[in-house]
């Protein structure tokens, strides 16, 4: 029997969305002099351990939440000082696009180059000061429902279960956390969010969701090359014309830069490896000149939800709300999701607090949230950028980019029609027989690296003796279908070397080996598996990467 605890609100995931929800709830409670019990669970070993983002922050939501963030010491230390956008033609050449031709959504004046990990840690301090209880190392493993179907809360995962499913010494059963309202802010493709969307058909009547995978590294560079606040974006090479995505290089503080690549998971060639594309990309002079002589400090990867407004599911259901990237509030035209995730959390907090003021019981479906969201700047922003992603998918990087320039700069995103892309990412993968294998250059150990040495830098760690958290619906599918038809794409789209196809001991066939300890919790496998056979579930709490200032 699991023990249970009662709260007014339980929040799943201590990221920007969840912590903004928590802070805003407590601010209102203090103002109204009302006691409010609030609990945030976080699967990472500490707050910030699983936070992974570019990041350039638009401070709008933060300023609304904490107008005095500067005095409170928020880690926004590097204002953007310059924007450079390149169209990469090949391994050597790149065209810098004049600022006047850049879609206005991609201008960054007034924004900051930040470490989202550090901002999140700071937000957690603010939340705790406001009286929020945050519990890192506890993964929400299961959604609990009332008899009437409303969400009742969550249960944290059991600790101390062996790989064979049996209890080990020191076994500790999970806890049931009951709440009047439960807020799910797990980030992109949250494993509970996915269940909620399915159970309550939240995505009915909206476009298919689309995703990208972002891979990035943190580097210490030669101080002579460091230009704090410089933001570089690129499109084109190394991705082919059928593959969307973009590269970035941000100069942060302390002689550090982040360099990364986002590859849309709508890519079609199963031989493509986002990790390998990224390693190859760094050899372009635009990046190499900055990185040369520097030292790589950290590495990580995370999927991102980029379908925008067209694919935004309904975010409320009886007893709870879905916020941030768990729903998909990222503004793809700005390539930013933090301010929108925070805002969605704040609106959620306001809706929940108002509901609790009039109805103590909770457990209702907060349709008021949908209305409040529509009235907020968040909706306006997402509406204006609704065509950005679909245009890139439909017309490719160049013509899509041109469309976006006209749409964003001339019409401010208010063109009277909406583009759609309803082919899910996993279904866009072509069979290997229709595609050309891609030969990637060997890493040089200075600018580019292999997968395993990269994963090592993510500090990812999982208790070894536990059930595999990458579950297969059908054990025969990986070899029969994924290997047979698609040449085993999971070995390539996984940025952490979790999936490996190896020969069976009898050497007569292939088998899939899952190195679950390597997992970075990026969720790409759950999204891109062409057979939709892999389901990502939470491992034992504290497992996963331990990102520093990522």
């Amino acid at each position: 029997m699991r023990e249970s605890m009662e709260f007014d609100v339980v929040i799943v995931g201590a990221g920007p969305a969840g912590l903004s929800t928590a802070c805003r709830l407590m601010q209102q409670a203090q103002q109204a002099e009302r006691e409010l019990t609030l609990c945030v669970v976080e699967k990472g070993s500490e707050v910030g351990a699983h936070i992974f983002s570019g990041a350039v922050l638009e401070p709008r939501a933060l300023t609304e939440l904490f107008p005095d963030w500067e005095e409170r010491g928020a880690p926004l230390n590097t204002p953007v000082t310059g924007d450079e956008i390149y169209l990469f033609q090949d391994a050597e050449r790149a065209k810098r696009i004049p600022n006047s031709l850049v879609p206005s959504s991609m201008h960054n004046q007034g924004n900051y180059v930040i470490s989202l990990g550090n901002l999140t840690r700071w937000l957690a301090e603010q939340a705790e000061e406001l009286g929020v209880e945050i519990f890192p190392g506890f993964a929400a493993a299961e959604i609990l429902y009332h008899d009437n179907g409303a969400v009742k809360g969550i249960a944290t995962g059991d600790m101390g279960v062996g790989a064979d499913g049996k209890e080990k010494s020191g076994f500790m059963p999970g806890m049931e956390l009951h709440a009047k309202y439960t807020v799910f802010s797990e980030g992109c493709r949250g494993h509970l969010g996915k269940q909620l969307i399915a159970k309550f058909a939240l995505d009915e009547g909206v476009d298919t969701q689309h995703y990208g995978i972002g891979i990035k590294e943190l580097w210490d560079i030669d101080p002579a090359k460091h230009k704090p606040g410089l933001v570089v974006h690129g499109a084109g090479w190394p991705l082919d014309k059928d593959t969307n995505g973009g590269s970035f290089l941000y100069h942060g503080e302390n002689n550090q830069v982040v360099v990364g690549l986002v590859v849309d998971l709508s890519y079609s060639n199963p031989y493509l490896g986002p990790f390998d594309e990224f390693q190859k990309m760094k050899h372009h002079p635009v990046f190499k000149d900055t990185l040369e002589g520097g030292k790589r400090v950290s590495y990580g990867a995370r999927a991102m939800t980029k379908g925008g407004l067209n694919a935004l599911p309904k975010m409320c259901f009886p007893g709870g709300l879905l916020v941030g990237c768990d729903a998909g509030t990222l503004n793809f035209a700005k390539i930013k999701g933090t301010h929108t995730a925070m805002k969605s959390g704040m609106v959620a907090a306001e809706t929940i607090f108002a509901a609790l003021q009039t109805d103590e019981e909770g457990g209702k479906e907060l349709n008021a949230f949908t209305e409040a969201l529509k009235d907020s700047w968040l909706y306006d922003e997402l509406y204006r950028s609704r065509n950005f992603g679909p245009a890139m998918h439909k017309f490719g990087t160049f013509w899509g980019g041109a469309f976006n320039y006209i749409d964003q700069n001339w019409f401010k995103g208010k063109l009277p029609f909406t583009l759609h892309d309803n082919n899910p990412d996993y279904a866009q993968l072509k069979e290997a027989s229709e595609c050309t294998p891609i030969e990637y250059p060997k890493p040089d150990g200075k600018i580019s690296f292999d997968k395993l040495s990269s994963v090592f830098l993510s500090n990812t760690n999982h208790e070894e003796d536990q059930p595999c958290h990458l579950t297969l619906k059908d054990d025969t599918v990986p070899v029969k279908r994924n290997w047979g038809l698609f040449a085993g794409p999971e070995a390539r789209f996984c940025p952490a070397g979790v999936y490996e196809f190896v020969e069976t001991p009898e050497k007569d066939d292939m088998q899939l080996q899952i190195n679950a300890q390597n997992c970075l919790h990026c969720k790409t496998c759950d999204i891109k598996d062409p057979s939709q056979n892999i389901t990502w579930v939470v491992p034992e709490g504290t497992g996963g990467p331990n990102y520093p200032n990522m």
Partner: protein
Amino acid sequence: MKILVMVKRVSDPNVMIRVSADNSSVDLNNVKMAINPFCEIAVEEAVRLKEAGIASEVVALSIGTSQSQEQLRTALAMGADRGILIESEGPLESLTVAKLTQKVIAEEQPGLVILGKQSTDTDNSQTGQMLASLMGWAQGTFASKLEIDGESINLTREVDSGLQTVRLSMPAVVTCDLRLNEPRFASLPNIMKAKRKPLDIKPIADFGVDLTPRIKTLMVETPNERQGGEVLSSVAELVEKLKTEKGVI
């Protein structure tokens, strides 16, 4: 009997660390910190003794920066009754820590002090031994088994040649090895309760212990990267390589 258990905040042993740019120290900026794993074993042992009805109170002591409160809270969540933090700015040497602990012992009068055998950051393995000497108490280091027998402790030590069992009279100092126990997970309700348990913070200056360092760190360097091996096809080739490339024969 009261047990004093010591807790140190160190960089999480699962996490990579880097040498600072000027080679003066390890760069701990943005590095995840944790309770020293050997200290965690010490806390677990103390809590088990309390649960067995042998100890009446478990007091956790940490000497370090203000953030060490987090590790003390971990100890409290595991079952320690209260915490004491002697707050200091910079790193301290083992002898200083032992002398500060001596002062705490004078005040708290524990019958048993349990520590980790070493901390994973500096790997000194000194504090327990120094403390026992300063106190003139019996010491049992590298413990893998501990049994209280009236006023004595039967203690199994992990030594180079195998296991050694010693009998100590209390009060005593015990340092733990890895196999002594398997620390528990702190449960959610216990973490919540731990937030309300007493935690005294005392400035280091109040103890009148000389903090002047006796050791000077000259340089901190990363170990050399391992050179990749090479498979050769014949003995002749090996001899040739050893002669020409390596110049060893």
